[in-house]
């Protein structure tokens, strides 16, 4: 009887085997599959978040720059005066000069100014006037154009920048809404600009026709303290430096 009883109890073995196999399938096939799928989903969500952040940062990028052409030791040079007006650092990686790319590495910190000097702009053998179309590209894929047009360099007669008029730029890192700008030629006592300006432009461009030194006074009209003089400075313009910049 003892033998029969033990064999009878073995009838449950198949149920046990079935349960073991079911658990085995769960742990060796189903659960790893779900884990792999969850891992892939996690990677996807992570990447989606990262590209979303990159797009957001790309949209936030906001900078402007002026071209300041000068002549140093008979060589034409263009200095890019750059103002980063956003809360993230902007990295310039390409500068395009007349359709030709140059690799650069220029990092401008948030709400700061920076500059980039471009040399070897012309073929020394050439005597033809050259206009410079310049734009810059950031590492996040934004392209920015200068606020200050296209300077032209004429190598004849020792070389000079060809300008119909000279320009004084007033670049504002933190634009104010109520300003008074005064620009006067010190040599001839001619006043070129004496007006209140009422907008939030990042910069002002004042055209002058005479060579010489200019006095520039920018006053903040309202706010505390009222009528605060933001700058009172002098700048020179002429054929070798046709554009002057005042940064506030």
């Amino acid at each position: 009887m003892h033998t029969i009883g033990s064999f009878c109890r073995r009838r449950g073995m198949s149920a046990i085997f079935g349960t073991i196999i079911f658990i085995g399938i769960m742990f060796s096939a189903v659960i790893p599959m779900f884990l792999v799928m969850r891992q892939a989903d996690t990677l996807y969500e992570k990447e989606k978040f990262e590209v979303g952040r990159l797009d957001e940062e790309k949209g936030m990028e906001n900078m402007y720059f002026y071209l300041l052409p000068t002549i140093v030791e008979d060589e034409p040079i263009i200095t890019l005066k750059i103002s980063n007006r956003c809360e993230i650092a902007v990295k310039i990686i390409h500068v395009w000069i007349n359709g030709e790319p140059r690799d650069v590495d220029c990092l401008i910190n948030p709400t700061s100014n920076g500059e980039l000097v471009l040399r070897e702009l012309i073929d020394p053998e050439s005597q033809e006037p050259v206009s410079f179309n310049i734009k810059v590209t950031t590492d996040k894929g934004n392209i920015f154009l200068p606020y200050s047009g296209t300077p032209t360099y004429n190598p004849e007669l020792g070389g000079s920048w060809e300008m119909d008029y000279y320009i004084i730029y007033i670049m504002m890192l933190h634009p104010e809404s109520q300003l008074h700008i005064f620009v006067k030629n010190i040599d001839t006592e001619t006043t070129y600009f004496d007006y209140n300006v009422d907008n939030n432009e990042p910069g002002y461009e004042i055209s002058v026709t005479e060579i010489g030194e200019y006095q520039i006074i920018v006053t903040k009209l309202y706010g505390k303290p009222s009528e605060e003089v933001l700058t009172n400075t002098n700048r020179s313009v002429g054929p070798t430096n046709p554009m002057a910049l005042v940064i506030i």
Partner: protein
Amino acid sequence: MKERERLNERRAIEPVISAVILSAAVLTVGCSVWFFSQGAMTISAEDYAESVINMTETISERFIIEQVIYDPETHTLSIWVFNYGDINIEVNVTYPVNDFIWREVSSKHLEEISFEFIPDSEIEVGINVETRRGNDAYYRFVLPS
């Protein structure tokens, strides 16, 4: 009495054999199902992971047409594609000329694509560049007069 016990013992062989057969059948079928499901689920998981990775790469592609220049003397249209994303891409110009040549643009690199192009009478040309994963970039270019 002894004969009867022996007969009883012989009768006990039948449930043993049936239990062994049932267990063997359960083991055979169970193992088959186990291996089959393991293989099927491995394939399913790999397919799913691959499709998600492909989708991830598709949404990760970031590129622009950074510059376009047309030389009217040589009738050459040059397009610079800048890949500012984190993965390499393959691009093909689909408009105005589709040459069906895929060019690789590495991550953070600028690639020039030049080809012959004779414009009809348009003053503007729309340029379209697409990647192998199906993203595209558009640029409107004014031809030099």
